[in-house]
Structure formats: structure tokens, C-alpha cells
């Protein structure tokens, strides 16, 4: 899932200065799971904002709404009546959702309430770690389910580098070398032959921004090439 963390309160409040009617919009998917922007976090932040403005005796009207997702237009359309009365929207969705909300309501200023960080997993309660860089050419089949582009500090396609010491990364001594982990995993599975040939350099054309993916069944509809 996409992992995000809430921006510092001061930064959020500063970005909203001057507005009288603000709608805080949460998202019930990735950011809810990583406790950054779901219904509960929207409730907490709106309470903080109301209390903060109250302490300053500043009559700002804060409303809240949490959508199933902000990356699908059908959900964004559901709040069109509520948005009309607002001066600004504060979105707690990931960067994709914030931008889609801004596109859906071009006449309203939209501000981010979170910093979107990476595609990751829940290691434990309250702890998320990065697992995927969305490089567009997944080689997990070759590397035993461990991504060197994400887990290797240098993102090496072939490793380990000369700085690896006793299985640890030279950049971060606390971290296990990704390529050693890959080697050990493939050895256990009897698949070491997979990393004997050198992996060719990554095709960075697949990382041209902004990316587009068109499902094969929809190529004709969108006049797209095969992707």
C-alpha cells in the first residue's frame, strides 16, 4: 500500500491561513491503514484545528468528510454539494488522491495534510517499511521475492558491492545487505543459477514521468500502444 504520514500541525495550519470555511477530506484506503488520513485521523485533525482556532478566537468553520478513496472520480463526485460552500479543501489522501481531488474541483484551493512516502508494508503495529519503487519492470522472479532496487541502499541490479562486510551494508551498518539476503534466499530454494548471469541495466524509459498504464482490454478505447 501507499504509506504516508501526517504533516506537522503547524505546517498544515499555516497553509490554511486566511480561509474561513475548510473541508478536511480523508481517504478510507491506504492512508487509513497507515493511520495517516483515515476517518479517525480526519476526526483528530479537525478537532485539533477547531481547538486551535478556538484558542485564537478565530471563527473558522471546519467540516470533515472521509471518502472510500480519492483516486476514483466516482467517490470524489459524492462531495460536490459539500464542496460548494468551502473556501479550501485539506486532503489527507496520498499524493495521487490529493491531485485527483484538485482536478475534480478546479475552482477550490486544495492543500495536502500528509507527506506521501513510499509503497510499503506493515511490519508491525505503527511501523511501515518500503518494499517497492514502482520501477515498472519487476524482477522479483529472479531475485527470490526480494527487491534490490528498493532494499539495496544503492539500488544495485547486481550485487553485492565491494563495501558489503559480513552481510551488512557499508552505507548503513544496521542494515543487512539486500544482495546477501537475495543470495541466501535463492540458495535455500536451490535457485542460485538465476543470479549467475548479470542482470541487464534497468530500462529507465519505464520510469518516464508521469507514468501511464492502459489495460490490454482497453487499448482500443484509449488508442494506446501496448503497455
Amino acid at each position, binding site marked *: 500500500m501507499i504509506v504516508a504520514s501526517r504533516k506537522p500541525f503547524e505546517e498544515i495550519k499555516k497553509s490554511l491561513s486566511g480561509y474561513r470555511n475548510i473541508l478536511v477530506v480523508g481517504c478510507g484506503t491506504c492512508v487509513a491503514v497507515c493511520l495517516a488520513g483515515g476517518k479517525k485521523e480526519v476526526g483528530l485533525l479537525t478537532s*485539533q484545528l477547531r*481547538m486551535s482556532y*478556538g*484558542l485564537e478566537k478565530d471563527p473558522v468553520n471546519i467540516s470533515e468528510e472521509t471518502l472510500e478513496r480519492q483516486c476514483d472520480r466516482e467517490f470524489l463526485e459524492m462531495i460536490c454539494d459539500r464542496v460548494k460552500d468551502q473556501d479550501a479543501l485539506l486532503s489527507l489522501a496520498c499524493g495521487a488522491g490529493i491531485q485527483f481531488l484538485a482536478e475534480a474541483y478546479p475552482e477550490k484551493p486544495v492543500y495536502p495534510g500528509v507527506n506521501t512516502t513510499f509503497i510499503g508494508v506493515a511490519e508491525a503495529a505503527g511501523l511501515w517499511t518500503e518494499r517497492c519503487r514502482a520501477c515498472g519492470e519487476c524482477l522479483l522472479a529472479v531475485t527470490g521475492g526480494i527487491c534490490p532496487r528498493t532494499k539495496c541502499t544503492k539500488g544495485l541490479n547486481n550485487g553485492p558491492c565491494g563495501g558489503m562486510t559480513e552481510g551488512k551494508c557499508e552505507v548503513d551498518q544496521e542494515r543487512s545487505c539486500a544482495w546477501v539476503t537475495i543470495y541466501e534466499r535463492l540458495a535455500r530454494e536451490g535457485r542460485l543459477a538465476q543470479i549467475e548471469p548479470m542482470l541487464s541495466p534497468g530500462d529507465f524509459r519505464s520510469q518516464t514521468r508521469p507514468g501511464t498504464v492502459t489495460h490490454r482490454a482497453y487499448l482500443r478505447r484509449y488508442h494506446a500502444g501496448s503497455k
Partner: protein
Amino acid sequence: MEYTKELLKEIGLEPERLEMFHIGASDAPAWAKAVTLMTERAKALGPNPLKSI
């Protein structure tokens, strides 16, 4: 509790206004002690500035 106190500090409200005590349902002396503590704390901090909201 620590996190909630942080949230209060962020908006400029004293985190000491909030506290959690684990008290058994029948433990009246512990309850009285906690109430006395919080009453004294509230008096020292003064009225909650948000009371009028």
C-alpha cells in the same frame, strides 16, 4: 495517552490537562486520589481556555 498529549501540545493546550489512570472498579481510595490530583492540577492551570466553545 502520550500521543494524545502530543496532539494537545501541538495546538498550544497544556498536555497536563489530560491524564489516564488505571483504577479497579471498586478501588475508591485510588479514585479519590486521582480526582484530587486532577482537581489541584486544573486549579493550578486555570480554566480551560476552550470552555466557551
